[in-house]
């Protein structure tokens, strides 16, 4: 008996929205950022949930935010983190803190690696993938 081996095709995985998270992704498709806010907690939260983290308050509302923020931290992946990202070359893996508070895992683009600074102001880059029906939210330096 012989076995065959098909090498996996390493394409970067794209998100698949769930019924609960759909409003976030629908907003990105319109090139807007919409996240949840808990009035009783007095805080925006991310990622989307059915109840507010910590209090489990059942009062989450979807609110549009500007999407602007500051770079909280980053690293440059000299080596790919998985074969799926090898074609992308070194990436700036970033955590952006929105002006409204929550932090967001993302990628910083349109910037020379030596110009990246924690604390720098960043703005959204909406990346449409029409064939997958998804828009990814990346970031670039403001101005």
């Amino acid at each position, binding site marked *: *008996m012989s*076995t065959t081996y098909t090498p*996996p095709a390493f394409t*970067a*995985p*794209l*998100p*698949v*929205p*769930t019924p609960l*998270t759909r409003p976030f992704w629908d907003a990105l498709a319109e090139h807007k950022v919409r996240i949840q806010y808990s009035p009783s907690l007095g805080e925006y939260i991310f*990622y989307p949930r059915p109840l507010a983290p910590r209090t489990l308050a059942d009062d989450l509302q979807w609110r549009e935010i500007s999407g602007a923020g500051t770079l*909280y*931290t*980053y*690293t*440059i*992946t*000299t*080596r790919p*983190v*998985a*074969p*799926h*990202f090898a074609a*992308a070359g070194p*990436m700036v*893996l970033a*955590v952006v803190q929105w002006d409204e508070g929550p*932090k*967001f*895992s*993302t*990628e910083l683009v349109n910037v020379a690696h030596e110009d990246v600074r*924690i*604390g720098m102001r960043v703005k959204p880059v909406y990346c449409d993938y029409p064939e997958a029906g998804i828009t*990814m939210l*990346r970031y670039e330096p403001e101005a």
Partner: protein
Amino acid sequence: MGLRGEAAILGFYELPPERKLAREKTFNLEQWARLSKAALDDAGLDATDINGIVTPLIGEASMFVPSTITEYLGIDANFAEIVDLGGAGSAAAVWRAAAAVELGLCDAVLVTFPGTHEVPTDERRPFVMEDSMYFGASSNKYGSPQAEFEIPYANLGQNGPYGQIAKRYGYEFGYDELAMAKIAVDQRTNACATPGAVFHGKPITAQDVLASPMVADPLHLLEIVMPCQGGAAVVIGNKDLAAKSKNRPVWIKGFGERVPYKTPTYARDLMYSPMVHAADQAFSMAGITRDEVDMVSIYDCYSITVLMSLEDAGFAEKGKGMQFVNEHDLTFRGDFPMNTAGGQLSFGQAGIAGGMHHVIDGVRQIMGRAGEAQVADCNRAFVTGNGGIMSEQTALIFEGE
């Protein structure tokens, strides 16, 4: 609150790690049996003394893991527990076992962590590379927050997020790459006094560390663990069995644990790790101060984990960890003996058994069995476990009497 310190580690076994497996391939279940037997022999106890087990996830089962193991070994367990806390799992398993002994559920508990992931294959049962292996313990299943909000941005695995933590540390407190390198260098000195360490006989300098390839800025290759094949086990028993054991009992006097998040993006303050709470609880439970500890074994998947654990466990002031490292000799013969068998950085990280290296480092010292690397008059040890991306952390305090 907490343990009375009436359960002790009575025996241990740690396979010398191998970067490339030279030993025969065996399944995790077979490893479980053989590692356990070796630890029992070390303690001088009988298999029939055992009535509890604690295990990590194993390769051959995705559910019903504890009962699969008790059946395989023939143990009528009163306590059969699985811990899923990554690198914190070993330390977490130790206190759970101690608690089961102190509650009177068990006379003795096996804590066994198979760490050889290369297992036999067959053409009808080939090795299959699963997403979880590529994505470094981030779940790519539908509905997983990691699948939706982390993996698509390559925020996965370990190197990237640990690099992000180190970068933020440098932004808030400053960064001395020579101090970070010294952590690896001092541990290598310890490995050179520890036969069986993968880097035994291979001393390094700070320049070697800084000249090694940058993997995830600012972390260099020699600041990152070397995955190995291995495995380890300890036997934890009550006072009666401690009296029968041939080793100096290592009493588990205190523990603490905190598990607040999976992905560090969502830490409320990334610069204060869960170790703050875990260590405070452990010291409070044991009723001793930081100064009364004779050695520490700090989970060291990355240099930054060691640095922040030293601060957050209260040995160094927040933001002054690099100064602390520069001012102390961290080798077994130094004024602050740490990771005296080389740590995982220089002893080798045997997969999920990596955390056991720190448990056994502390045990070996208190039992007085560390050979050339023995710390003189070592009676108290502080041991940490760290899972995920500094997101699951456990602290233990051991004491010999």
